């Protein structure tokens, strides 16, 4: 079987591009990616199982996350004894298991994880404990404005009936109602190697890493299910919330063919235009994100501002992004901005588990090279085209009731 070749290559401009370039005819079947890093002190393993709300009956919202936490709980003590760290993160379209372990323990820890995920039956006591824990966590989070905004935003961007329009981890009510037998059935049906991608990063021998994973990850195409088309809100969403500030969120959806790296740079540049500064003292907080899902993704900008200024800041958000759709930046200005963006992107990958996560995510979305970063070939024109290709954003306000005069 041909192995992916992970390499650091130089492009024509002399800049670095890191990619896991697949070689050979077996590339299409690849679901295991290995990035040997001799100087890195630990091994990070990311297992992404392509299971999420789209696989859940609406009445069992959150069963994916409950299943994921329940199935690994019995192995927690063993992970601890190996000095391994395991995190579980539910995303809209997948569950990510992040394992970090010392070089002498990673193989055993990974075996434990894979057996837990794909072979062990779920332990009913673990389900009961995890269900209670998740219900407690979600109940506590219900009062968080950040969580409330995310709920409203997801509903506005995808539609209330769309599986991605509801919280990826479910609600306290829906999780409380999930039965042990339902978790067992859900696991058997959905947690399979065919729906999974694994990325290994660290001081490993590639062949040995592949051998370690081979019993758990039989060769075969990645099985990916489609999700129904979104039904976004056709007007601004105004969600009332008992607070003294207003959260303003603007979300631009983009398609599968979009220039994601240019959109990432665009998000950072736009954020600079609306973040706190000498002329923007009323911006209490600001955030930019670009997230990718199968079929596309979202560029999100969020501000926290005084309620009376919310409407004007929504306009500012639109302009902060739209402003880059006109004339391309001059080469000098662009290079200055790119210099900063390049550093920020690299800093996002300074943990080995972040690199493993980026590779696995990229592979899950069909990138056969599992590219880590692709900023070196960015140009002013790519930036402009990325901004110009966006549809109008979906605006969500979360805060005290806004008077018509206040906008």
């Amino acid at each position: 079987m041909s192995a992916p070749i992970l390499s650091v290559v130089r492009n024509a401009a002399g800049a670095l591009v890191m990619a896991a370039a697949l070689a050979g005819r077996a590339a299409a079947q690849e679901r295991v990616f290995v990035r040997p890093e001799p100087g890195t002190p630990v091994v990070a393993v990311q297992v992404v199982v392509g299971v999420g709300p789209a696989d859940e009956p609406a009445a069992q919202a959150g069963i994916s996350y409950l299943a994921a936490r329940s199935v690994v709980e019995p192995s927690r003590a063993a992970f601890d004894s190996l000095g391994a760290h395991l995190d579980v993160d539910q995303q809209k379209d997948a569950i990510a298991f992040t394992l970090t372990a010392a070089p002498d323990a990673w193989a055993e820890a990974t075996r434990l994880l894979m057996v837990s995920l794909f072979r062990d039956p779920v332990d009913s006591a673990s389900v009961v404990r995890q269900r209670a824990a998740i219900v407690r966590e979600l109940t506590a989070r219900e009062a968080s404005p950040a969580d409330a905004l995310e709920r409203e935003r997801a509903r506005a961007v995808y539609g209330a009936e769309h599986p991605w329009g509801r919280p990826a981890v479910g609600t306290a009510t829906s999780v409380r109602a999930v039965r042990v037998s339902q978790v067992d059935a859900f696991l058997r049906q959905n947690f399979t190697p065919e729906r999974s991608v694994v990325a290994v990063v660290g001081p490993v021998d590639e062949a040995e890493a592949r051998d370690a994973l081979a019993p758990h990850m039989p060769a075969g195409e990645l099985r990916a299910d489609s999700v129904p088309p979104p039904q976004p809100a056709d007007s601004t969403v105004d969600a009332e919330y008992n607070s003294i500030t207003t959260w303003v969120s603007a979300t631009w959806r983009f398609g599968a063919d979009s220039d994601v790296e240019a959109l990432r740079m665009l998000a950072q540049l736009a954020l600079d235009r609306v973040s706190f500064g000498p002329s923007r003292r009323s911006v209490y907080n600001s955030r930019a994100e670009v997230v990718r899902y199968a079929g596309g993704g979202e560029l999100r900008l969020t501000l926290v501002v005084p309620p009376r200024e919310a409407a004007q800041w929504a306009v500012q958000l639109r302009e902060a992004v739209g402003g880059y759709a006109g004339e391309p930046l001059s080469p000098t200005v662009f290079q200055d901005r790119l210099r900063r963006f390049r550093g920020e992107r690299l800093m996002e990958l300074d943990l080995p588990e972040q690199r493993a996560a980026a590779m696995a995510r990229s592979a899950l979305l069909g990138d056969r090279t599992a590219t880590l970063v692709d900023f070196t070939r960015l140009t002013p024109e790519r930036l402009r085209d990325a901004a110009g290709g966006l549809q109008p954003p979906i605006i969500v306000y979360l805060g005290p009731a806004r008077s018509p005069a206040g906008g």
Partner: protein
Amino acid sequence: MLTLSLVLALAAAPPDTTRDRPKPAQSAPAITVHTQPALPVVALRMSIVAGDPPGYAGAGHLFQHLLLPSLEEQAARVGGRVQAIRGSDAIVYSVIGPASELDYLAGILRSALRVPAAANGAIMLQSLSALAGERASERETAPAYVRASLRSQLFPADLPAAGTDGAATRLQSADLADVWGEIYAPERVSVVAVGDVSLGAVERAFRSLPAASPAGRLAPDAADTLPALGADTPQATRGWIGSAWRADSAEPAALSVAARLLRNSLRRRMTRSTVEVEHWWTHQGQALALVVATPDSLTPAARRTVGGALATLGTGVNDEAVRAAAAAVRREMLFYSRTPERMAELLGEFADRGGGRDAAQRYYAALGTVTEDDVRRVLEQLAAAEAATVYVAPQRIPPEQRR
């Protein structure tokens, strides 16, 4: 003060590339490069191994407060990050960013070796206020207070990084160039670089350092006086018990393993309490410190358990437990140092306390050879030492204020 439960060392890393300080010019720092080609980034850690001038405790940290905003702004231009830490051994600045920006990042660090241009009044006041806040916070809450109290008993010369109120008053009116002249000299500077860089490139980036300011201009009769901790009442909702023992001659790896075994043992026995056992290690010496927070009703029993902790551990220690504890410490070291920034921090901290530039690697290797006998020797040394102790009682709501 290095806390080994938090700051842990290095893998079986390939030998570092090092360059001794050039002589006789000594205008360039000692450099250690640990190559990590995984990502085109570099973490640079620059330390100035120096204490604060007598009577000017907190001076090194004040300079960091004065400089940090400017350093952060410079690093942000290339998407990098800056950190400033005042430890017991050294004044430390770190920066991380793209490896292609090595010269620029090194320039940021070199700029921290110059006296801040006569700081404007507002920035000076802001920085002194930040130091005052740090001094207050050390006495405000029980966890910090217990550690500060134990440290002051075991290492009275090791003053808080934020200094003292008296020193702050002197610093406000002092000529900063005179103060800096007592702290900085090129031969006190060391650089650790971790990332996708070569020794030659790092050498070029640090080929010259600013000259030292003249020393000896500060008034020689100043002294630092630390207000007694006993006068403070830190906030506590549980009873806080602290015990610590100096162990300067203990083998460091064996002391770390003993600390881990003691932590494991106490956590098994004190399931309703929070137990931390730490290995403190600076150029001033070593100690094992035990900090326990316990519900009020369990305080008498907890104090008895802590009082007999060393003896109890001595009866139960065995080779298998020692090997497991040593392996756990080693794995934590690897986990902690998994970013270039932290690897640089780790290598630098081991070197700054005087162990040489391969001190971290030697410590990591030594962990693999610690035996039951080594741990017993450490326990004997601790048992023979005088214990520093502190107790913070939980604050109670007066009956008339209870609902």
